């Protein structure tokens, strides 16, 4: 290294500039090369398919002809499509609200515990997030089984009628939201717990001296200081829940009578089983605007958080 530097110094002025320039460029070329695999993966397997799907959405079923917005017109006239829109939004918004509330409450309870005990409880409460959603949805499917539901067994013992969990459209929607909340709340809890821990304890002491009780402390101190994390987590979860496939697919496969279909599952049904790829692409493209809006807000919040810190 020292030799190189010494050598450079002995080179005449013009030559020195050239080799310095080369060195600077070399650093950024190395950097670029190191980032190349990432760029390649993202370009080929994310950017390209995304754009391609827009193209696909404009083709007819056999993919021979260009039909412009024909697929979209077709979808707008189908009742199922509007059901899918409504259901996707319903599940996403309801599930995220419940996940945030449950996560918030549980995080506060865990935070209340003495420090050594927190680890055990945190460990137990995160388990739904660790189990592959497909596997745990199977468990829920079994719990909701029409003939052998373990819940109905408890109801029967309490003298209450059994519930047609997945057979009844309204209960089926309830179940989808429930499993979603079950899988996602631990994530919210962990995030909120981390945010809670970053609120300085002295602020709570100052508030106690100023006269605040536990509810006022949460409302005036915790909530405002966690606002950024709350927004980012909610938006992230909105995107993930909105595009969720596993839970609906395994639990209800969109039924009964398409009353629990979401964009992901319906697109899958149309494209893979109905063999109509362009139509499937059109359906899944509808997710894009909502995802884009959510992504915009996430980016803005993450930047803001970076500036605040």
């Amino acid at each position: 290294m020292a030799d190189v530097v010494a050598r450079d110094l002995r080179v005449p002025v013009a030559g020195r500039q050239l080799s310095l320039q080369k060195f600077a460029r070399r650093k950024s070329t190395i950097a670029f090369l190191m980032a190349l695999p990432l760029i390649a993966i993202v370009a080929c397997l994310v950017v390209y398919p995304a754009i391609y799907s827009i193209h696909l959405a404009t083709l007819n079923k056999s993919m021979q002809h260009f039909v412009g917005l024909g697929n979209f017109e077709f979808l707008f006239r189908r009742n199922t499509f509007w059901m899918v829109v409504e259901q996707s939004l319903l599940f996403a918004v309801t599930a995220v609200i419940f996940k945030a509330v449950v996560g918030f409450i549980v995080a506060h309870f865990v935070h209340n515990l003495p420090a050594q005990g927190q680890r055990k409880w945190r460990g137990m409460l995160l388990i739904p997030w660790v189990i592959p959603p497909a596997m745990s949805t199977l468990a829920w499917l079994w719990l909701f089984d029409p003939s052998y539901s373990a819940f109905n067994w408890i109801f029967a013992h309490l003298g209450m009628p059994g519930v047609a969990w997945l057979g009844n459209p309204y209960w089926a929607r309830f179940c989808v939201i429930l499993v979603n909340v079950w899988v996602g709340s631990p994530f919210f809890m962990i995030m909120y717990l981390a945010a809670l821990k970053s609120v300085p304890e002295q602020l709570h002491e100052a508030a106690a001296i100023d006269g605040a009780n536990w509810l006022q402390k949460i409302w005036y101190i915790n909530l405002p200081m966690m606002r950024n994390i709350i927004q980012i987590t909610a938006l992230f979860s909105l995107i993930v829940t909105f595009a969720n496939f596993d839970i609906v697919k395994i639990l209800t496969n969109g039924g009964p009578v398409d009353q629990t279909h979401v964009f992901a599952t319906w697109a899958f049904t149309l494209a893979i089983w109905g063999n109509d790829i362009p139509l499937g692409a059109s359906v899944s493209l509808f997710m894009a605007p909502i995802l884009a809006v959510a992504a915009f807000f996430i980016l803005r919040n993450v930047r803001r958080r970076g500036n605040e810190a």
Partner: protein
Amino acid sequence: MTMSTATAEVTTGQLDRVRHGSISRGRRKALFWSYFFLILFVIFFLTPPVYMFITSLKSSAEISAATNPWWVYHATLSNYIDLLTQNQFLIFFRNSAIVSVCVVSITMVVSILAAFALARMRFWGSATLATGVFLTYLIPESLLFIPLFKTFAYIHDTTGIELINHWWVLIILYPTLTVPFATWLMIGYFSSIPKELDEAALIDGAGYLQMLTRIFIPVAIPGIIAAMIFSFTVSWANFLYPLAFTTSADQLVLPVGIVTTLIRGDVYAWGQIMTGALLGAAPPLIIYAFLMDYYISGLTAGATKG
């Protein structure tokens, strides 16, 4: 003087109602309610896995006999033995394992290199790239699988390479799901390494590759472990891509295998299904049990590092 004696009388009257130690009693009450509600939540969160376990110990006779579903009367390991000796399940497991391990390796190599470049070295467009990487994480697989499916079909038509219905295709596909977040994680960890370390290394005569291997990687080991755990869990648990791209029984990975082959029509062999599900959930759970802190730090990296 009269004022203070008056207040003294008033306050001693109040004294009788207030007993010694009621601040700690208030805290003890808060603790009690915390444990009470936490137990309720734990019951809610742990019921499905516990129920999976209970069912896995039942013979199909006991299941169809519809006795108490929450209790095992004649525990049997037959489900486990059947699955673990049965070739098919082991194939699922093997496929999943190979795919996951490969994907983790690819992810770590790509993300560490890219994170190092983005965190440390300025080059044209590095800031946009970093944001772009973050954004791609937000494009869901349910949007991408259709065009990818068509692309693979096209490749097959033009070059004869069959990409569909091979489990190793997943090794190509999964990195899209793991690399963005892993890169973002590693960027966070690398950025927190003080620049003085770089400069000290440069003076000591290290090149960039040596800086990476001898300084950055060792210091960022917690982040690397967290990213590895994350990539593994995502690969192992993925359901949509394998469902769309693999169909024959010997090409399936574990989640899809259990869901599609064990559920044959309307005949549900629930004992086996639950056992399969539990075994399918086992690897992530085991990793979680031993490396819980890394797991959690990976998740919260976003919260604390912004």
